[in-house]
C-alpha cells in the first residue's frame, strides 16, 4: 500500500449530519444568523467577504457530543471559548465563585487599560457575566486598535469573528492572539470553571490532570493550571476533560 492509499484507507471518520442538523444548517444559510458576515457590527466590503478575506472564529462545544474524535483538537484550539460556552449554556451551574449570582464589578473598558482590566476582573476570584462581557469588549477594542474588525458572535456569543484581507492574515492572527491573551483568555477560563454544569465532575478532571503530571499537586488556581495542562499535553488534558464530562 502506498502512502496515498494509506491516507485514503485511514481518512478521518465523520458522523453524518442528522435531519435536524441539516434543517438547522439550512436555516442558518438562508437567515445569515449563525455566522457573522451579515452582522452590522463588522463592516464588510467586497474585499472582506470570506472567499477573499480572512474569517477567524472560535468554535464552541456545541457539538461536544459528536466531537469525541476531534476533542483533542478542540481543547487545543478553542478550549477556552468552548468551556465558556458550555458553562453559559447550562442552566444548572454550580453555585461557586464566578456564578451569575455573584455581585458584578462595574467595569468600563474606556476607563481601565485593557491589560489591567483582566487583572482587575480576576482579583477577587470571581468572574461575572458582566465582567466576561467587559473582557470581550476589551478584546474587541484591542483588535480594533490593531487595525482589524472583530466581534464576539455566534449562537452562544463566544465565537470571535474577525476579518482581514488575505495578505494580512498573519498580522491579524498575531493581533488576535495577543489581544485574547491579555484581555480574555484567563478571565474566560476562570469564568468557565465557575459555571460548569453541576454534573460536570471537576474533581475528576483535576485528579486526572494531577495524575498525568499536567498540574502540580499544590496548584489550586485552575486559571493558570488548565492553560498549562493544555500546553503540556493536549491529548492528555483532553482525556481528563472527557473523564469529567457527564454521559
Amino acid at each position: 500500500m502506498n502512502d496515498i492509499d494509506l491516507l485514503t484507507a485511514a481518512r478521518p471518520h465523520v458522523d453524518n449530519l442528522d435531519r435536524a442538523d441539516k434543517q438547522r444548517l439550512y436555516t442558518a444559510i438562508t437567515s445569515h444568523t449563525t455566522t457573522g458576515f451579515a452582522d452590522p457590527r463588522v463592516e464588510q466590503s467586497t474585499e472582506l467577504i470570506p472567499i477573499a478575506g480572512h474569517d477567524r472564529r472560535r468554535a464552541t462545544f456545541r457539538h461536544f457530543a459528536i466531537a469525541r474524535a476531534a476533542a483533542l483538537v478542540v481543547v487545543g484550539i478553542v478550549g477556552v471559548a468552548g468551556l465558556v460556552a458550555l458553562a453559559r449554556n447550562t442552566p444548572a451551574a454550580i453555585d461557586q465563585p464566578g456564578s451569575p449570582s455573584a455581585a458584578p464589578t462595574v467595569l468600563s473598558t474606556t476607563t481601565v487599560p485593557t491589560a489591567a482590566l483582566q487583572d482587575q476582573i480576576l482579583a477577587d476570584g470571581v468572574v461575572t457575566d458582566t465582567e466576561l462581557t467587559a473582557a470581550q469588549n476589551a478584546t474587541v477594542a484591542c483588535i480594533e486598535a490593531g487595525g482589524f474588525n472583530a466581534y464576539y458572535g455566534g449562537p452562544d456569543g463566544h465565537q470571535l469573528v474577525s476579518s482581514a484581507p488575505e495578505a494580512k492574515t498573519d498580522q491579524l492572527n498575531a493581533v488576535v492572539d495577543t489581544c485574547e491573551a491579555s484581555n480574555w483568555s484567563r478571565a474566560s477560563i476562570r469564568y468557565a470553571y465557575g459555571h460548569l454544569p453541576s454534573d460536570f465532575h471537576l474533581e475528576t478532571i483535576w485528579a486526572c490532570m494531577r495524575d498525568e503530571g499536567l498540574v502540580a499537586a499544590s496548584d489550586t488556581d485552575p486559571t493558570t493550571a488548565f492553560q498549562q495542562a493544555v500546553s503540556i499535553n493536549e491529548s492528555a488534558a483532553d482525556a481528563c476533560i472527557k473523564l469529567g464530562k457527564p454521559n
Partner: protein
Amino acid sequence: MGSNELLAACGQDGSVESLHSAHDPDAELRRLYERFVDDVYRFVARRLGPELAFDVTADTFRIACERLSSFDPHQGSERGWLYGIAMNVIRNHWRAEQRRLRALARFARDGTGTDETFDRVDDGIDANSRLARVLDVVAELSADDRDLLLLYAWERCSYHDIAVAMDIPVGTVRSRLNRIRTTITAHIEVLSHE
C-alpha cells in the same frame, strides 16, 4: 431573510441572472443543498473537525449562492465547484487544520484513536507509524498541494472534479498528484533516517 431575498441580495446589481436561479432561486438553493450538503460537510469536517464544519459549510453554501450566476454547468460538476468554494473557506482556518492534522498524526502514532478517529486503520504498528508520518508531511504541504491531495485521498474525487474545484487542467491534476506522492515518500525517507 428568506432564501429568495438572500439570492437577490447576492446579485451584483441586485438581480440574479443565473442559469439556475432564473427559474426558482429558492428551489435551486434547496436542490444544491440537499444534493451536496453531506459531501461538503464531510469534506470540511475531515479537514477542520466537526466543531468548525457546521459554520464553514454554511459559509460555503452562502458563497455558492452569491456566485450562482458565475457558475457555468457546462464547465464542470457542481460538486467540484462547491468543493472549490469550501477549500477557500477552509484556508481561512489554516491554523485549525494544521492542529487537526497534527492531532490526527498523534492519534495514529499513539494508536489511541482508531475507533473514533479514522474510518479504518491498519492494525499494524508499522502502518500506524507510517500514517502518522504521512499526516505530518501533509500538514507541511503547500495549501494547493494539500487541497489536491485530500480531495483525491479523502473525498475520492475524480481528476475531473478536482480540476473543477481547483480551476486547473485535468493533466495538471495528474502530474501534481504524482509529484505530491514523490514528495511524501521522500520526506518520510528523510525522517526515517533522522
